[in-house]
């Protein structure tokens, strides 16, 4: 997923298409080995998805007893049961996830955009130090920070609040890194200078000139952060004690671990997992057009 997002806009612009050796009109032969490998890869990626889709349609009786990839008959019952479970707490979890991921990714994109622009277009003392520290942050897995962040948040009296999950999600070293690289490449210095000559102040220069050029990059940052926060488990798991503030990942986990005397609610968890990826798919389809803007937003011939 990540590879497609990062590479599309830049690669398509700068790299000329490799010239195909064409000798006469020799018919192109099908390359079987790569095709087969790619097919295998596709199967590998799609089988779990198909499993989730078919399993979500099975009733409790059918789940472990019928053929794995045969659709069942219980999807609507599962959906109704999931919706009514503890007064519809599942939808509360979905709303929480949307809040954490939506607001978190939006703020993260804003912070990344400003920071990345500043790092790319201004020369100031300590610039490379800041950037190197950020690079080190990219290498640090966020999981290792979860517990220290929890201790910090509880010092600030914010543990078990919405902010405890939102605040750590805002600053994303990778997002800033991406925004800097993007700003450097997408905003020509000539344009910045031209705007200055025309009398634009720095904020207006960023708002009206730089920002529109950075939109495709920021959309990428937004999507990255959205998916990362939506799928995040450990941070909200540690931060939150109140089950009405849980995001959907932690909420579904609590359905699996109900103690020995109550069986895990597999059908509900599977149906819930299927529903929880729908917003991600919708988001990707909906945001796709912003990547194409890239080709039109340039102002200088290079």
């Amino acid at each position, binding site marked *: 997923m990540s590879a497609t997002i990062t590479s599309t806009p830049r690669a398509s612009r700068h790299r000329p298409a490799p010239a195909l050796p064409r000798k006469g009109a020799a018919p192109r032969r099908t390359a079987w080995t790569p095709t087969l490998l790619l097919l295998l890869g596709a199967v590998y990626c799609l089988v779990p998805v198909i499993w989730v889709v078919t399993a979500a349609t099975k009733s409790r009786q059918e*789940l472990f007893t019928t053929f794995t990839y045969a659709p069942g008959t219980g999807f609507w019952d599962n959906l109704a049961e999931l919706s009514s479970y*503890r007064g519809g707490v599942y939808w509360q979890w979905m709303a929480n996830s949307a809040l954490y991921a939506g607001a978190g990714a939006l703020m993260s994109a804003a912070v990344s955009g400003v920071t990345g622009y500043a790092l790319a277009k201004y020369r100031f003392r300590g610039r490379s130090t800041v950037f190197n520290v950020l690079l080190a942050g990219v290498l640090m897995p966020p999981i290792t920070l979860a517990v220290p962040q929890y*201790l910090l948040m509880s010092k600030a009296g914010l543990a078990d609040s919405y902010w405890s999950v939102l605040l750590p999600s805002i600053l994303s070293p990778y997002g800033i890194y991406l925004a800097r690289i993007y700003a450097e490449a997408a905003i020509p210095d000539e344009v910045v200078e031209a705007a200055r000559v025309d009398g634009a102040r720095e904020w207006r220069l960023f*708002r009206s000139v730089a920002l529109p050029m950075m939109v495709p990059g920021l959309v990428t940052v937004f999507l990255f952060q959205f998916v990362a926060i939506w799928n995040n488990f450990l941070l909200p798991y540690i931060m939150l*004690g109140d089950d009405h503030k849980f995001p959907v990942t932690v909420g579904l986990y*609590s359905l699996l*671990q*109900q103690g020995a005397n109550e069986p895990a609610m*597999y059908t509900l968890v599977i149906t819930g997992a299927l529903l929880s990826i729908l917003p991600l798919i919708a988001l990707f389809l909906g945001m796709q057009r912003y990547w194409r803007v890239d080709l039109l937003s340039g102002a200088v011939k290079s």
Partner: protein
Amino acid sequence: MHRRLALAAAAALCGTLVLSACSSDGGSGDSAKAASGPVKLTFWAWAPNMDKVAEVWNKAHPEIQVSVLKQAGGDDLVTKTITAAKAGNAPDLMQAEYQALPTLVSNDVLADVSKQVGGAKSQFADGVWKQVTLGSDAVYAVPEDTAPLAFYYRQDLFEQYGLKVPTTWDEFAATARALKQKAPDKSLTTFSANDPGLFAGLAQQAGAKWWTASGDNWKVAIDDPATKKVAGFWSGLVKDGAVDNQPMYTPAWSKALNDGTQIGWVSAVWAPGVLTSSAPDTKGKWAMAPLPQWESGASVTGSWGGSATGVTTGAVKAGHGDAAAKFATWLNTDPEALAALVQQVNVYPAATSAQTGGLLSAAPEFFSNQPDFYPKAAEIAKGTASAAWGPNVNVAYSAFKDAFGKAAQDKGDFGAALSTMQQATVEDLKKNGFQVG
């Protein structure tokens, strides 16, 4: 533009302040509030519908309001609670499995509430009560549910193959082998290396005491003769292929129970709930019998699971210790609460008064063919051997999964796996600064 940005920043800052104000009074609470309004307690539990039981209490006790925050159970919750307690955010009350109590006590999460709840001792079986005192004069929790082991078998298939219900482990082995001869594709049961809790229960039945403490000195005896006997017994069955060696709680296992490939299950009193969802087609075909014995005529069993309600040190520090202990006692001894626990939360209560009589008079729906299910369970529960847990059960359990998982897969020697488990447990205790002798 500048002004708009400043406004936005100010708004965001205000939002932070407001939210932080909200969150701080929802936590462990401050004494100023406790004095005026009702005491507000938080209760971390994983059992479903616990909030409905708390509602019963909240209606009757306006001065102490308990809100249940439902958590995911298991070992992770122990870690989460310890972290929360270290940061001063622990809940006031928590549901904890018996084997987690020493870990929670040694991390200073659970408070000694012997003064407040000591009077409830007579309501529980001795072996159960010992698990919440950890063999000392203190009391760290009130028992909530217990899970004595029993043997579940397919009545119809036992009849079909002419098998007798085993009363000793020797008979159990003979039954497993006889079944293999008559129907090679079927198994009496499986040895699951994924479920250390079951193995621990079987070892308890044989008389094992895995952890014992005298003063500050811990003794670990996971490879004691009793446990060796149990490990050797299952090792033999797995080696001969007399029982299956695949883990429990997998889709394949559910299928095997449902289609009768496995015709028996050593499990605890909560088995009907699991069978209802794992083997729905076999309703009314199962029966429960006492766990096979090492000495014929005995009636000893172990436990697999079970939990208690503890009061945290955080609650005591906030001045809510008495209120929390009051609720914990009510939850597990009051007839009204026990009724709600049995009917709503679906637990097998630890209080002996609730194990017989009106509450559990009807057998579980899945076992309608065995109308005396609960009286029989109460009879079995009487012989529950007390367990001896230590401060690093989680380490021993994960060592079990690794070592026995491999041994079961290779049909290898369980004795060596047991030594590995012992060694890992002792080393971890030492590493964490406990005296081990």
